[in-house]
């Protein structure tokens, strides 16, 4: 069974890449994973086009969850999801969870074969602690 994919979106490419490293080392290789961070001119920020590309890299027919950090990361991720093709849009969910912990928890749940709703719910359950 295909695992739900995980996308990490941070204002900082270092944070996004570091969170992705933690997922790879703690959870493993079986979950589709992509990260993006920083604006096209090399500063802090997020970019709608890059978020769409990250969703594409982590794509799974089971769906994708997106972990975001502050403000713009969330609004740009919402915009990126809006712009996805119809058949993909409904399968991509943003998690209201801390980006690092949420990514590890979501990936662990995804590796166990859970649906995209359950993966989102598990990441958000962690944040509610």
């Amino acid at each position: 069974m295909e695992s739900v994919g995980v996308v990490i979106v941070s204002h900082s490419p270092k944070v996004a890449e570091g969170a992705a490293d933690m997922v790879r080392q703690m959870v493993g290789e079986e979950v589709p994973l992509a990260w993006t961070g920083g604006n096209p001119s090399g500063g802090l920020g997020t970019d709608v086009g890059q978020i769409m590309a990250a969703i594409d890299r982590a794509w799974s027919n089971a769906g994708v969850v997106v972990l975001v950090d502050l403000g713009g990361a969330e609004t740009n991720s919402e915009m990126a999801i809006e712009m996805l093709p119809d058949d993909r849009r409904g399968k991509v969910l943003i998690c209201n969870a801390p980006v690092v912990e949420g990514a590890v928890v979501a990936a662990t749940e995804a590796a166990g074969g859970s649906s995209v709703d359950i993966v989102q719910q598990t990441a958000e359950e962690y944040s509610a602690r």
Partner: protein
Amino acid sequence: MKNGTATDQAATGAIVIAHEVGLHARPSVKLTKLAKIFGSKIELGLSEGGPWIDAKSIVKVMAFKAAKGSTLHFRAQGGDATQAVAALVDLVRRDFDERHGGG
């Protein structure tokens, strides 16, 4: 899976955590991932009488924070309960397949 069917099993097991930092983040992920392979209901506790948490919930296992030297108790119910408990006890016995590094 219904209780009381012919294929249903109940199994329990216990093992002392030797891992230097106990059941922290990385071991928690490994334990949860392994538990999720099995169909049985699997629970985890620090004593024979519980309280019990769902071993397949990464959030609950992460929050469990069992320290080095504490005894982990497993109990499982279902068609593969015996194999599940054996596999989980073995994972802890193998020190979660890591001898060094933090949590």
